[in-house]
């Protein structure tokens, strides 16, 4: 975690902060979901508590905490209680291993009479070289919480919901895993930061000329993965809906068939913890899509240079320095301050992309009807899996000539 006290404490604070960012985004997303569904269905939605109903989130959280605890007497108490806790962990760990911005470089400085630094803090809780493999492995552990909830509840609806959830998650994991292989061939790396670095520069499409390959640069478009892997993008995007148990694939909690699926017997904050896990998975999925296909925290080299580096970062760091000067002089626009501000600006860009995809999750949920279970399995095994295989082989075949 670090070599000295400063680094270790910063890394710990960073880890906790990213986890709390994830947890605190959940009520916001619930609000967006309720207001968004109301908007789509021509209703008002929650609009009484606070401006635009924003305080509703806090009210909900407090209400959930004060609910009576119910543990089904016939069920397995240990499994019942441990399932919502397990639901939190995979999403949190997966989200924390994704780089949310550029690393912060801090040059050496003096504090408390001793010399510190230089440091490089990556904008993620922990750097792990095998990025995608780790995220896929950890996030598929989410099936355990649903299975344990289903088995612990001693309720047939819960059990069927849990079985459906696990069968659906493992089926779509195949399509999802294969959809990513194409993008792995293109980038040749597992590491998220290297993938984002590979998407810098303008879009250049390799074209065949006589006996060699020419890279044709296409003006202003950024060099994003979606232009190289459009089929892979669609396949990944569809399969994450099934992985996160969202409509149109929310068969595990299909309320017309299974009451509430695997969390039928849960109430209060314990039910909410499943939602935190589900929204955490959605954030991970959105972040993965943004990293693989939409340049991660980068807006494309042109916009990055002109808008972010040229305008926003200097102005914001000047503003920030003057704000700090109100509390005590001696702050100036040092390189360290600029680096920190730049990291947070890129973080804002990345969060904007994640929120855009999260909005698409909400939008799809309130637009499309639910699939039937056999249709869901047919789509996964008989349609998406062959398409993903074809995409992989075609990508590999083209990369033979275009490397």
């Amino acid at each position, binding site marked *: 975690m670090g070599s000295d006290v400063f680094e270790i404490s910063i890394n710990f604070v960073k880890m906790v902060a990213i986890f709390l960012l994830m947890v605190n985004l959940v009520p916001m997303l619930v609000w967006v979901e309720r207001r968004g569904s109301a908007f789509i269905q021509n209703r008002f939605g929650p609009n009484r508590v606070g401006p635009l109903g924003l305080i509703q989130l806090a009210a909900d959280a407090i209400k959930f905490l004060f609910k009576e605890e119910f543990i089904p007497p016939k069920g397995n108490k240990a499994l019942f209680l441990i399932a919502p806790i397990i639901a939190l962990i995979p999403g949190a760990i997966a989200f924390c291993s994704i780089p949310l911005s550029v690393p912060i470089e801090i040059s050496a400085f003096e504090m408390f009479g001793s010399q510190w630094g230089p440091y490089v803090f990556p904008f993620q809780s922990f750097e792990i070289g095998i990025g995608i493999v780790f995220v896929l492995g950890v996030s598929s552990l989410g099936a355990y919480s649903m299975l344990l909830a289903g088995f612990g509840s001693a309720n047939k609806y819960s059990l069927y919901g849990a079985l459906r959830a696990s069968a659906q998650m493992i089926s779509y994991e195949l399509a999802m895993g294969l959809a990513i*292989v194409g993008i792995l061939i293109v980038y040749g790396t597992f590491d998220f930061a290297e993938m984002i670095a590979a998407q810098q520069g303008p879009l250049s499409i390799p074209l065949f000329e006589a006996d060699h390959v020419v890279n044709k640069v296409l003006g202003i478009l950024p060099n994003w993965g979606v232009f190289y892997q459009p089929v892979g993008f669609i396949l990944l995007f569809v399969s994450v809906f099934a992985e996160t148990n969202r409509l149109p694939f929310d068969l595990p909690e299909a309320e017309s068939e299974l009451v509430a699926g695997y969390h039928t017997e849960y109430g209060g*904050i314990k039910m909410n913890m499943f939602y935190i896990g589900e929204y955490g998975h959605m954030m991970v999925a959105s972040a993965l899509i943004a990293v693989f296909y939409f340049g991660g925290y980068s807006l494309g080299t042109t916009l990055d240079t002109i808008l972010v580096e040229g305008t926003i970062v200097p102005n914001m760091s000047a503003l920030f320095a003057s704000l700090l000067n109100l509390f005590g002089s001696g702050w100036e626009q040092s390189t360290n301050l600029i680096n920190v501000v730049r990291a947070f600006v890129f973080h804002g860009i990345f969060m904007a992309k994640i929120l855009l995809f999260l909005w698409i999750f909400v939008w799809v949920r309130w637009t499309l009807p639910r699939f039937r279970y056999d249709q869901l399995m047919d789509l996964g095994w008989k349609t998406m899996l062959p398409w993903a295989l074809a995409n992989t082989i075609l990508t590999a075949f083209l990369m033979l000539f275009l490397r």
Partner: protein
Amino acid sequence: MTSLTPIIVLTVFVAIFGVGIVVVSALLGPKKNWTKAKKIPYESGLPGQERKETKIPVKFYLTAILFIVFDIEVVFMYPWALTYTDAGLGGYIFGAMAVFVGLFIFGLIWEIKSKALEWD
């Protein structure tokens, strides 16, 4: 201090967070004596008939077995994809995987033909 340390620390932190929420909620919530009707599992208003040993359709086991076979095949593709352009083996690396994918497709067709994926 390996690279696993932060993961373990974070897991422990999240677990403590989750346990804390559950405990606080249990302490804050009202405690009432449960009536007999409240103790039975929720069955949409009908009298509870639930036994512990609920029978599970065999399709789910079959799906799990098929998943293990196919997922291992997918996992084999990851190192292949990672080294695809760097290995410098030309068409051989493609040909090797083409044979493997051929087997994969054969397995998938056989699986569909044997109606292992039919849900009714």
